[in-house]
């Protein structure tokens, strides 16, 4: 059963990768990366049980905690960039 689940997750990962490669907008890619991260967490958890080593769940936990930071960094990047651009426009005009 774990095997079927992990294959399904691998297929989902491939689909997310296709979206990340094709785009077209920045937000598509960002969502794809986020989804890819979630699927990695799932894949690690399932494979940990497939191998019979549930103590490896630590890794999935680490990913689940850290993934969030990457996405927030992207959001911060967009926010500060749009503020900077608005400020440039005010200064220029």
């Amino acid at each position, binding site marked *: 059963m774990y*095997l079927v689940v*992990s294959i399904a997750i*691998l297929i989902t*990962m*491939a689909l997310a*990768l296709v979206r*990340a*490669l094709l*785009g077209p907008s*920045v937000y598509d*890619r*960002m969502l*794809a*990366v986020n989804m*890819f*991260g979630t699927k*990695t967490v799932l*894949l*690690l958890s399932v*494979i940990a049980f497939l*191998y019979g080593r549930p*103590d*490896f769940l*630590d*890794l999935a*936990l*680490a*990913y689940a*905690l*850290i*993934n*969030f*930071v*990457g996405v*927030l*960094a*992207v*959001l*911060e*990047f967009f*926010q*500060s*960039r749009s*503020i*900077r651009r608005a*400020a440039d426009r005010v200064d220029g005009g």
Partner: protein
Amino acid sequence: MVILFAVFLLTLLALTAVAIVRTENLFVAVMLTGIFSLLMAANFFVLDAADVALTEAAVGAGISTVLFLGALALTAEHERSVVSGRWLSMGIVVVTTLILIYATFDKPRLGDPRAPVHQHVAPWYLDQTPELIGIPNVVTAVLGSFRGYDTLGEVFVVVTACIGVLFILGVRRGGYSPSPDGDRLTTAGSGLRHHLIPKVVGRLLIPFIVLFGLYVLFHGEYGPGGGFQAGAIIATGIILYALLDGEAQALKAVPRPVLMGMVVGGATLYGAVGVAGIALGGSFLDYSVLADDPVKGQQLGILIIEVGVGLAVCGSLLSIFHAFAARGRH
């Protein structure tokens, strides 16, 4: 089946790598690098290298994305296309690839017990770790004790890299002096605290990330993990605070002198354990003499050097993060 998983993941990895090289939009490249790192970690995990996968998780998923975006904020968004010398580089890449493929013909099969790598010192490590060090995670025993010199060298590589980055990004002496214009921009753009969901979820997560880092540090002898991963995870927690409340606020919580102290102090702590071994009558980085019972001494020594590694890594990553942010303000 393991092979199938690994081949599938490696195929995706190769596709992502080609896409990173092909794209000229640097933001897209950063996003794809995130996927690359996730794939790499999944691949390490499938091949049963949990410690390496945890390192890739700790550094690749969070911090490298943050640092890449920090760098991207300082440059233009599109890559300038370089045409000259394309055929030469193409030729070098093709030749190297062919040589590497040729070299793989002599490689033993994956997991072959008669492979040279499993004949040399590895059986001795596996055999002696329970007796000499008494901890279940052999990787920690090898990195911390048997090959302590290598790890000491790696810590100094981290410290040197940190010094190099700080020199290049040119942090001013005396820290950040707010100019009226720069200040307006940073207060307007500092952090995501005006957004409810990141604020609430992020504040909730910070203590757990730091706690998890400490768990990885002190549990490294029993499960995957150790000082390097712990340092990176704790640094991620503090970077999350910086993203939420603004970088200046995070610098107030962990000021620059403290960061420098962590970088230098961590590396010095590691070296000091080695010197303490000499002083107590052993050899450099021989922890057996640190306690009455040699096995206890080994465990104590490994724990102290892991703390040293964690301090150095955490301090370096945060210094580099702040250096990028400080550069962005000027």
